[in-house]
């Protein structure tokens, strides 16, 4: 539960951080809008006084005074300033008492401060003003209070600021909600994992079929768990298999020795007992060696020994090896090669795998039958096929055949430990190939090597 608390405060802090960033961003944005609005309003005002100035300048002399008077009359809010001064600084018209000091007569708008006389007293205002020389030497000043523009900007700014607070709250709420949702998922996964760790291997992580990273991760972990579950079951199974199959020959050995000790009277009898014991012990050792080899292959990354394996040559070799054995059973052993093909792999292991298949085929085929080794191309894959005219593998047996120590009743009397096909499967898997066991009359097993 304490753990949960930490998670919560972490996610909450995260939500706060996101909200903070959002707030900063919004404020920056609002600041920018405020500044732009301000600039725009001032620019507009400047444009207005500039055009006003140019308008008045363009008027003929007498009309100017009237225009100035009119201009000021229309100024209901008292934000306009105008002034016409003679060359020596005497005021001719307007509401400016004197030419604003510091104002350049260059026809560009400046910020200057002027004094304004009101009934209550005089005030100093900062205005935007523009001044120009007239053809007759007079100076014309047109100005406008900036405060007005400022006021508008203020209103805008205030409105935006008021909106910021609810926006911030919304962001915080959204952040909190999202993080709580994520936290809930993490919690769920956490619990599942704890159950899996405690031993409940069936559990899987929940994931919707959505293409989001969390679901993908869950899918990958589930895949891992599937493999682990299979491996653990296999291991448990192997333990049982080993127990049974090792104990049987060892028990036989022990029984033979025990009885022999008591009952054997002649040296010959004792030697027979000892022979039996040795045979059984050898059987146990063969099982152990077989299992160790299997483990070695299944768990190894022995791809260092990989090279190019010329399959047609290798299959010929297998045929040469088993030819006399096939002949003893009057079995016709043939190799059919469509084309010379090679794969990448461990030659010794691949030879062992094919040898195992051929060995089985010969074992299962009755006298006078046929065993065929074929090398052919499939669709972007190379296939090694071993087929025979024996009884084949039934649909039910197909599954069983790959269990360890499984020995079909048909060949129970022949020597062997029952790990042959397991070995083939392990070798095939190590190479990234596929082993296909066909059911039906006549055995047919294929090692399928996809093109890399």
């Amino acid at each position, binding site marked *: 539960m304490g753990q949960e608390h930490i998670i919560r405060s972490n996610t909450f802090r995260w939500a706060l951080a996101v909200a903070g960033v959002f707030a900063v961003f919004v404020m920056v944005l609002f600041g920018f809008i405020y500044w732009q609005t301000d600039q725009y309003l001032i620019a507009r005002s400047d444009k207005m006084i500039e055009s006003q100035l140019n308008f008045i300048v363009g008027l003929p002399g007498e009309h100017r005074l009237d225009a100035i008077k009119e201009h000021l009359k229309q100024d209901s809010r008292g934000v306009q300033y105008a002034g016409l001064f003679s060359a020596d600084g005497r005021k001719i018209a307007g509401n400016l008492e004197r030419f604003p000091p510091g104002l350049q007569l260059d026809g560009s708008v400046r910020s200057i401060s002027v004094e304004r006389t009101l009934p209550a007293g005089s005030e100093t205002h900062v205005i935007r003003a523009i001044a120009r020389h007239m053809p007759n030497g007079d100076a014309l000043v047109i100005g406008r209070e900036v405060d007005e523009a400022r006021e508008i900007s203020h209103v805008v700014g205030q409105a935006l600021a008021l909106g910021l607070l609810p926006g911030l709250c919304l962001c915080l709420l959204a952040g909190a909600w999202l993080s709580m949702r994520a936290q809930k998922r993490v919690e769920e996964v956490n619990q599942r994992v704890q159950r899996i760790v405690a031993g409940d291997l069936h559990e899987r992580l929940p994931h919707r079929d959505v293409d989001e990273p969390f679901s993908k991760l869950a899918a990958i972990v589930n895949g891992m768990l599937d493999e682990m579950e299979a491996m653990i079951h296999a291991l448990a199974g192997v333990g049982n298999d080993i127990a049974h199959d090792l104990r049987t020959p060892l028990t036989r050995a022990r029984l033979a020795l025990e009885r022999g000790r008591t009952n054997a009277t002649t040296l010959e009898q004792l030697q027979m007992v000892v022979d039996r014991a040795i045979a059984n012990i050898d059987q146990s*050792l063969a099982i152990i*060696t077989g299992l*160790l*080899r299997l483990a*070695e292959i299944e768990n190894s990354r*022995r791809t260092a020994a990989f090279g190019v394996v010329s399959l047609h040559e290798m299959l010929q070799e297998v045929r*040469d*090896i088993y030819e*006399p*054995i096939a002949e*003893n059973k009057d079995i016709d052993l043939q190799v059919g090669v469509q084309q010379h093909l090679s794969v990448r792999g461990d030659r*010794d292991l691949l030879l*062992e795998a094919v*040898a*195992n298949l051929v*060995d089985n085929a*010969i*074992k299962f085929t009755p006298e006078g039958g046929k065993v065929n080794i074929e090398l052919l191309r499939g669709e972007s894959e190379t296939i090694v096929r071993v087929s025979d005219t024996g009884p084949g593998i039934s649909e039910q047996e197909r599954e069983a055949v790959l269990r360890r120590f499984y020995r079909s009743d048909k060949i129970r009397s022949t*020597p*062997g430990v029952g790990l*042959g096909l397991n070995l083939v499967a392990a070798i095939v898997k190590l190479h990234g190939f596929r082993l296909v066991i066909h059911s039906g009359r006549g055995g047919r097993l294929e090692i399928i090597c996809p093109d890399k």
Partner: protein
Amino acid sequence: MTKVLLIEDDSETAEEITAELADRGFEVEWSASGIEGLDKARSSRPDAMIVDRLLPGMDGLTVIEALRKEQVRTPVLVLSALGAVDDRVRGLRMGGDDYLTKPFALVELVARIEALLRRPVESRETTLRVGPLELDLIERTAKRGDRVIDLLPREFRLLEYMMQRSDRLLTRAMLLEEVWNYKFVPATNLVDVHMGRLRHKVDGPDESPMIHNVRGAGFILRTGL
């Protein structure tokens, strides 16, 4: 008498091996640790060595490596419970001449020691002659007396191997490793079947048999008729 140095830490195993070798007429010296064994190897100069791989202190392979560095060419048979192919390869690469996995048959051990002690000399001869058998190594043909024997390549190789080690016991494991180059033991009695065929071709109906099956051990090609 041929001197064999055995470096093995398990006393029971060592006792059995020593007894068997002594029965065969070897003089056996035993050491239970790597360092002591290395010392004895340097001082007593055995004709052959049997070295267990897993020893307390200095392990077997290190002992062999040290000897090889000192240019000691004594043939060494490595014993090991480690039976994986890579282990075998490593053992031979570190200077061992042969590798036997535990548990093993004493017969096997003896056969291999004898094989190590009397390794066939690399000869420039193009013909191999044992008794009435004659092998032309260039033409790859075989004759017994005047009778031509028709052999498949692998059968030729098998007969060549046996003729180079005539009158000596050759175990199935040795044959599988050297003639077939196998790193695994096939399920069926491969060697027996091939040997049966070879025997059939070499020992004709009226001829005295040269290829013998030693029950429970292996095969021998006997010259003495």
